Structure formats: C-alpha cells, structure tokens
C-alpha cells in the first residue's frame, strides 16, 4: 500500500480513499434510478442508510418497479447479499475477540470494500493486535458511510450522474483486481482465484447471484485442500 503510517487507523483511511472515491458514481446512480422508479426521497435514503449494499439496492428497486411482490423483492435482494455471510465468517479469526459493541458496529459497515481492504491488510500485518485491526477497519469504514449516503442524496436530489462516456464503472472491478492480485501468494491462493472466476462465469445463469456463492464455496474447498496436502 502507498501509505506506511504506523497508526493502523490512518493506514485504513489512506488505503480506503480510492475505494471511497469510486463509490460516488454508484451512490449517485442509485439515487437517480430510485427517484426515477417513483420512490420518495425519504425511502431512497432509507434504503441507502439501512441496507448499505449497492448491488442489492439496485435489484430491489428494479423488482419493485416491475411490480414484483414485496416478499420476493426482499428474498431476491438478500440472496445477492449472501456473500456477506462469508465476509462475516472470515473476519472472526481477526476481529472475533473485539468487544461485542465493536463487533455490532463492524457488522453494520462490513461491505465489499471494507472487507476486501481488511482481509488484504490482516493477511499482510501478522503482528497487529486485535485493537490495531479494529482501528484499521474503522479507518477504512468511517469514510465509506457518509460518502455512500451523501452521493445517493446528490443523485436523488440533483439528478446528478457521471456521464457514461467517462466509463467510470470500470474503475470498480479494476480497484478490486488490484487489491486481490497481491493476495495471490501461494498455489492455493491462485487455484482459489481461478476456481472463483471460472466458476462464477460458468454459473452466470444461476439466478440472484447464487452462482457466485457456489463458485466461492468450491474455490475455498479447492484452496484449503491444496494447503492441507502441501
């Protein structure tokens, strides 16, 4: 990572900045689309503050404007968020010993960006104490929330969206790839990533993003088996 501050909190803020910046167009787009779908501002902001999971919010608003029954809207959007269960489990060895109230807060802010940053840093910084890890997580997470909520509000109220010709939507996959690549440090890691990519693409037809979950479970099993044999 670029910053070498010894304070985990500040490291977290610095490492998280690029990811916070690329959230802005997504937050704004959600605001625009939710208003266009006919939601009042209070409900748009309700989604963004209570759910904080962009992809599932897009799914929910799309299905609602298609007139799908509420229970199915909720079930479909929750399926899109199932990967968060894996994030929650993966954080236990690192953040499990933290006080309960801290884990309550961390759970609220455990999104793709904060999970990916935390996993990458915790793998690297083996010497960090639990409170160092909590501080790092807080550093990555605290800017995420106001920026996500603020950009949704800007999209909803001002109808502001980034011109498509900027092709900014490609920044998101690029940033995650840059975060994953340094994690590929053993045969087991490389094999896991390979199964993850090929599995998700092969299972793309499975509804509600469940192909990703199946591919991820297969990838973990393959990687763990390679580690066990070596």
């Amino acid at each position, binding site marked *: *990572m*670029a910053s070498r501050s010894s304070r985990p909190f500040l490291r977290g803020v610095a*490492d998280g900045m690029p990811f916070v910046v690329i959230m802005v167009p997504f937050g704004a787009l959600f605001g625009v689309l939710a208003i266009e779908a006919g*939601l009042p501002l209070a409900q748009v902001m*309700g*989604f963004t503050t209570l*759910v904080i999971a962009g992809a*599932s919010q897009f799914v929910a608003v799309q299905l*609602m404007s298609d007139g799908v029954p*509420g229970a199915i*809207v*909720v079930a479909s*959007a*929750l399926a899109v*968020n199932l990967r*968060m*269960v*894996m*994030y*929650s*489990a*993966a*954080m*236990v*060895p690192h953040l*499990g010993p933290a006080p309960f109230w801290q*884990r309550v807060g961390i*759970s609220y802010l*455990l999104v*793709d960006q904060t*999970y990916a940053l935390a996993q*990458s840093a915790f*793998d690297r910084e083996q010497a960090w104490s639990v409170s160092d890890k909590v501080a790092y997580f807080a550093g990555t997470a605290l800017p995420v929330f106001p920026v996500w909520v603020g950009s949704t509000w800007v999209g909803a109220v001002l109808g502001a969206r980034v011109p498509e010709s900027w092709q900014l*939507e*490609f920044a*998101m*996959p690029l*940033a*995650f*790839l*840059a*975060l*994953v*690549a*340094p994690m590929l440090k053993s045969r087991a890691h*490389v094999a*896991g*990533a390979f*199964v*993850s990519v090929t599995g*998700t*693409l092969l299972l*793309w037809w499975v509804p509600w993003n469940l192909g*990703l979950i199946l*591919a*991820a479970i297969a*990838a*973990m099993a393959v990687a*763990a088996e390679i*580690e066990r044999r070596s």
Partner: protein
Amino acid sequence: MNVWWIIGALGLGTYLTRFVFLGLIGDRPMPDWVLRHLRYTGVAVLPGLVAPLVVWPEGGTDPAQLIAAAVTVAVGVWRKDVISAVLAGGAAFVALGLLS
C-alpha cells in the same frame, strides 16, 4: 407503507448476514479445517465478484477492459502494491481508448 416494510426487512436481513458469524461466534475457537477454508475467502469471493463485470460488462465485451484487467493483475502480483496496480491498469485502459 409496503415499501418501508421492504426496506426494513432488507436492512435487517442484510445486517444479519454481516453479523451472524462475527457477532455470534466472537472469540470462541473454531476448528482448524474451518479456519483453513476461511483463509481463502478473499480469493474465493472477490475475483468472482468482478469477473462478470470485466468479461461481460453492460456494453458488451471490450478488449481494452480485458487487457487493462490483465495489466492490473500482472502488476499487482509482481509489485505487491495496490496503488501501482490500479494506476497501471487505468493507464492501460486510457491508452487503449486513445488508440482505438
């Protein structure tokens, strides 16, 4: 009112997906085989999360995006540094856009 029910249920459900293990297990010890699987959560979920966005983006497959993604991964593996990987991939994408 129905919309608020959807928002509330989805918010609560999503919170529970994030809380279920971290909140409920806490620092109770987990078996070795579970920990061995969890060590690979990052490489198991994140590449699959972005793969469709790179290979099948909304506007259709774009060779410039595929090459930029390959450059990002190559530089990231080689330099072990996130920022140089993003900059290299972004520069490749912009350069290919100017050429085409």
